[in-house]
């Protein structure tokens, strides 16, 4: 199975849907799925934020977005540094 990737904007009390605080991607593979966020270290790294959200955690909103929107958030994070 080819990998399938879905993207989510991370929105908390200090960000907005128009300008999310971060971005998460869920990559489906033959073995299961892997969640990663694009971090302050400018790399994708494993994350449990989406899973926690699915289990009732209210720290962040996780909003499905397109790959293009995800790229824009990544670019914004890179420009910040």
């Amino acid at each position: 199975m080819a990998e399938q990737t879905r993207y989510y904007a991370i929105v908390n009390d200090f960000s907005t849907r128009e300008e999310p605080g971060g971005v998460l991607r869920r990559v489906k593979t033959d073995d299961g799925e892997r969640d990663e966020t694009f971090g302050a270290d400018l790399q994708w790294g494993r994350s449990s934020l989406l899973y926690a959200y699915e289990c009732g955690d209210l720290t962040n909103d996780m909003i499905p977005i397109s790959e293009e929107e995800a790229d824009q958030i990544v670019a914004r994070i890179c420009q910040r540094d």
Partner: protein
Amino acid sequence: MAVGVERSEQPESSDARPDRDTGPGADRVADQDRPLVLTDPERRVAEHLRYRDSVVNHEAAHAWDRAVPELRGIWEKITDKYGYTERSVSVAQPTDGSWHGEGGRKLDAAQNSEVDRGYARIREVGEGSIIPGLRAIEAEDPTRHLVGFEHRFKGLDRLKEKVADEIRSTPGITPSQALSVVPDAVRFTYEYDDAVYTANVRKDVERLEARGFTQVERRNTWASEQYKGINSRWREPLSGVLFEVQFHTRASLEAKELTHKAYERIRSVTATERETEELKDFQRQVNDKVPIPPGTTEYEGYRPERRNGRTD
């Protein structure tokens, strides 16, 4: 069943009654054997509702109780397969004032110190005004209680894990800001009977608001495969400190407890993809067996239009 309870029309034995009384007042059993005709319409309706609710509770409890042993067996197999042991108390800590957690999570010394100070303040607000408020609300209805009260403050290491996740995943946020968005540093759980769950959650939400707490968000996840319940975020108005209130039935709370180690294992971000999939499948199996309380799907969540900058 027809509205109104005419006991003479209830052919079931007293053993089959879900609300059978085997306690000190068992002399009521003799009364139950005599035909009882309720002539007052209001009493007839009230008795019908009481009986219906007791049947709902009884059936829900039994369906869940029957499923639990098998679910525990599945978890034991997963535990054996992956060699799980009790989670270590904490990751070995460096001596430079920084903090290290599972999955490579880190806070530098300044961040760690800021979180420690913030946590102390949250506990102070919790003890001083949030807990007394929640206790007062609890006292307004003796049919349900706060459960797991000993866990009202999140453990400091678990809290720092969340703060570290937030700092890493939302670049630019300060440690204090990250700490302030974690709603469950102070948390409470109310548990209800299935039959009265939805109505009583509504009442307790109203009581929280009447007590002066600000509802920030409420999420109904009874349709979720991974977690059943209603979780809500609240703000203590003077301090701005957030706290969480969860609303559960006995089964949904037991399901949460039964899957807690799977949840923690996935959250550690050290499990392989295949292992994670197996753990999620276990959570699906457990939650699939949790009875859905009547009316809960109609109780919508509440979320602010904008989630930034305290605009709720």
